[in-house]
């Protein structure tokens, strides 16, 4: 009997000696900002919350939070699978960098919200900056202040990171954009707009990356509540897409927006941007780096060996999480 107890206690002791592992919660967060969007995208979004190992054992500790926005043509599930954030958070904690990572889903009818504010797609800017932050701060032991809040993302998520930081100062203190897309002003033709505006669900399903991305951009940046079924603007002037519609696309380009947001960018504690040397976005992302330099905005910039997607998981571990560990207040 006694032996059994001892064996049991020994087993327990062994269990206790094994470091606890990061715990993942997959939750739904209601986005009031997303209600009533014309595409019928759900206002109740999947959100992964990756908690550090000490979260349950240290019930009074509060943690910095890194929000990570996924890329286009994908979902939060796909990025969870791609990056294995659970492991990454665990490894960071083992290195003394304890933080919570939050990965919201922004998949839409056209396969990506562009993290923009559109009556067609939904106000994903409001979802990310208000609904999500307030839900996480109310339900988890976060350090609920800008100094301890970081925003990051890959590709479309890198785009969202840059644009949201410029447009909503004071919520995040540090940001990291991995291979951000969609930085240059888009040139979309009337034919492309008409094509996107009339795509059937079957055509959307079958669309390749480029065609779907153009349609997603239009839904996010050039909505028209009076033009069903896809609620995309096709206003014409002199046989071309109306300059007002083109202007709306331009008004969502981070390269264009930068010069109206210099003090807000300079107020950030830290900005990081990276891109692979074989990434098709290298030129665009380098233009962003140069533009930040031109306006004297200090930032970390790295061109690494790789393409658009092959180093995301590795660089979340080697660069992104350590970056936030260095810059977010604990």
């Amino acid at each position, binding site marked *: 009997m006694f032996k059994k107890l001892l064996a049991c206690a020994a087993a327990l002791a062994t269990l206790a000696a094994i470091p606890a592992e990061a715990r993942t919660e997959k939750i739904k967060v209601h986005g009031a*900002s997303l209600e009533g969007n014309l595409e019928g995208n759900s206002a109740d979004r999947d959100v992964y919350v990756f908690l550090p190992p000490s979260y349950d054992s240290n019930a009074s500790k509060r943690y910095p939070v890194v929000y990570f926005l996924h890329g286009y043509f994908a979902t939060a599930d796909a990025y969870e699978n791609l990056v294995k954030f659970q492991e990454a958070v665990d490894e960071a904690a083992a290195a003394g960098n304890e933080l919570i990572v939050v990965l919201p889903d922004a998949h839409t009818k056209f396969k990506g919200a562009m993290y*923009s*504010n*559109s*009556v067609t797609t939904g*106000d994903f800017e*409001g979802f990310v900056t208000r609904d999500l932050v307030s839900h996480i701060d109310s339900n988890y032991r976060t350090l609920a202040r800008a100094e301890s809040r970081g925003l990051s993302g890959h590709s479309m998520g890198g785009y969202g990171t840059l644009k949201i930081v410029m447009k909503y100062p004071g919520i995040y203190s540090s940001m990291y954009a991995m291979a951000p897309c969609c930085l240059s*002003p888009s040139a979309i033709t009337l034919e492309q707009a008409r094509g996107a505006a009339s795509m059937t669900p079957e055509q959307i399903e079958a669309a390749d990356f480029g065609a779907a991305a153009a349609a997603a951009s239009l839904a996010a*940046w*050039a*909505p*028209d*509540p*009076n033009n069903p079924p896809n609620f995309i603007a096709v206003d014409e002037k002199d046989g071309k897409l109306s*300059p*007002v519609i*083109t*202007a*709306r696309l*331009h*008004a*969502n*380009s981070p*390269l*264009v*927006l930068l*010069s*109206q*947001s*210099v*003090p807000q960018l300079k107020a950030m504690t830290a900005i990081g941007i990276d891109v692979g040397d074989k990434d098709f976005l290298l030129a665009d992302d380098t233009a962003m780096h140069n533009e930040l330099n*031109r*306006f*004297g905005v200090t930032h970390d910039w790295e061109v690494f060996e790789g393409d658009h997607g092959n180093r995301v998981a590795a660089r979340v571990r080697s660069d992104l999480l350590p970056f936030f560990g260095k810059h977010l207040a604990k």
Partner: protein
Amino acid sequence: MKLTKWAAGVLALMTLTVASAQAQNITAPPAAVPNGITVEEVKVHSAAVAGNLEGNSAERSAMVVLPPSYASNPNKRYPVIYYLHGFSIDGRNFYNFMKVPEAVAANAAQGREFIVVVPDTLTKMGGSMYSNSVTTGDFQTFIAKDLVAYIDGKYRTIASRDGRGLVGHSMGGYGTWRIAMRYPEVYAAIWAQSACCVSPRTETVESATAMANVPYADVDKAGFGMRAGLASAVAWAPNPNNPPYYVDFPLKDGKVDQFVIAQWAANSPLALVASHVDALKSFKAIGSDVGDKDGLIRDDTMMHEELQKFGVAHEWAVYEGTHTDKIGQRFSEIVLPFMAGHLAK
């Protein structure tokens, strides 16, 4: 060039008034101050404007017009109307032209008491465009943050969104639209009078070349339309490495530089409405008006239609008048009563 219409409209104003020989800015005779009205000119330091490359002062003047009961009723707090002036005029002369003290007195006599604040944003180029430029200064933040903090700190205001209205004329109407979209949490109600610069501005190689060829020393003599173009350029396409203007003119390799045109376009209210619908819908009330003889009627009507398309409730009026002949009267008789109906008392 889009701006010619605006220029023509405002030239009418210039002929009504005495243009100073120096900088061609519009002046108006001192406003009468009715009994009971107190006017103070304050200097507001703007951290947001400090360090701009054009050398515009960070110490900005603001005319503050206090209602009759302000002195006698030391416990009362008042709603504040911020009133933004147009291009090629300073705050004091706009206050004069609009006869702001008389408007405050007339409304107070009807039981509608406000503090009205007219900030000055005149710049080297003739106007800040109320934008956020390293060249001009971040006047957008000056209006929405620095000025509001100063006024709330110094006067007995209703120091919350419910007690603040934003109004402007012409370039000030433009400023009203863009500041309202960017900082909706600051004001409860807004009104744009004859707003300029609503459509994306475009250039030809010829017009862009003419703009780029204005000698820096001759800006003051360049004429209203050209100065307005230069002011827009430095506000929307600043370049800290390109003195003396510190601007990217919309000209590159003999062609119109489409990136600069895109930067300008991104500052046009018509381009911004679609991505700020929630901000616009958050206001208690929005108003906009324009005269039927104002060259800006087409642009302002487009803005009205854009708001309608996105379901943003607003008052809209086209009245008999030009760009300038009814604006003072309408500020007193239409805009201030509208604000009284929507702001906290």
